[in-house]
């Protein structure tokens, strides 16, 4: 059987920045798995992933979330955004790191909308949340660029995006 799940690229911030961008994503896989690590942030904020050159005016992304915050379970929907949100029931934290895994399906095709599954780990020793999210970008563009953003705040040094490619079975 063919070995797959290949490392594509890892990008790490050496200094704080408002965005971490990975460009020129190879188009040779079927799915992408994106692991994101965000150290404690200077200001509690929301983390989001922009696709390609989606501007702030884009309304292409929507997502539905299932979350638990330790005291209850709930669901939330948001739509007409230029990004996929990666947290809802808790923001990125000033004391604890957060971790996310995004699965983009059929990302290189130009004949289907782009579907994504996002798993968010936002545990803060007694607070925070666990979230599962499924979203769709209402655009058939292949994904060639990913832009991690902290909603106007700085992503800290050590913020890391690792991309893996899964080939067709």
């Amino acid at each position, binding site marked *: 059987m063919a070995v797959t799940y290949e490392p594509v690229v890892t990008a790490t911030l050496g200094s704080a920045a408002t965005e971490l961008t990975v460009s020129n994503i190879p188009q040779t896989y079927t799915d992408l798995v994106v692991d994101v690590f965000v150290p404690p942030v200077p200001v509690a904020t929301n983390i989001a992933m922009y696709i390609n050159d989606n501007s702030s005016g884009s309304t292409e992304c929507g997502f539905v979330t299932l979350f638990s915050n330790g005291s209850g379970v709930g669901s939330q929907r948001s739509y007409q955004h230029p990004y996929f949100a990666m947290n809802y029931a808790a923001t990125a934290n000033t004391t604890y790191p957060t971790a996310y895994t995004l699965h983009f399906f059929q990302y290189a095709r130009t004949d289907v909308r782009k*579907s994504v599954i996002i798993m968010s780990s936002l545990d803060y020793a007694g607070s925070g949340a666990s979230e599962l999210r*499924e979203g*769709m970008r209402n655009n058939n563009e292949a994904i060639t660029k990913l832009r991690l953003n902290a909603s106007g705040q700085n992503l800290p040094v050590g913020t890391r995006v690792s991309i893996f490619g899964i080939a067709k079975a």
Partner: protein
Amino acid sequence: MIPFLHGVIGTAGAAAGAFESIATVTASGGETALTFSSVPQGYVSLQIRCFSRETWTVAASVQIRMRFNGDAGNTYSFHEVKGNGSSASVQGQASYSNMYCGVSTTANTTASTYGASIIDIHGYASTTRNKTISAFGGGDTGVSSTEYWCAKHTGAWYNTSPVTSITLLPINGFAAGSIFSLYGVKGA
């Protein structure tokens, strides 16, 4: 007729790795079942990555169902926690004829829009244990409606036989272009 897809045999001397591709099946449209047959037994667990849509016109999202080894008896159980963007709901079934595992969009949604799901099948090759699955999927299409939802599933097949075939079932029919890819995860 249920289309079968036999596992693709890799060439000898392939590099060792933990995650290996096994087979992909793509719906041509209308299939009431899709099966991976002759599943190789050399892995610790399996993963199915689903990009799926149904021909159903009653709702906008629907669960994918699964059976092992052609067993259509009431030998399965599952639990579901589902979120529709407004509230979370739960269900559980015992002595059921299949397991819910993932979500498809339907013909009620925008064209070229497919649900995304990941199904993990743990210890599938065991001859001493019942089989356990875990899955997450969703069928959001970016509109404000509780008809589109995501769900986390766990399930079990109460049979200690190794899993040699996996059948995925729609509620109505899989739409053309639905893709199911099977991967094997090797042990350390």
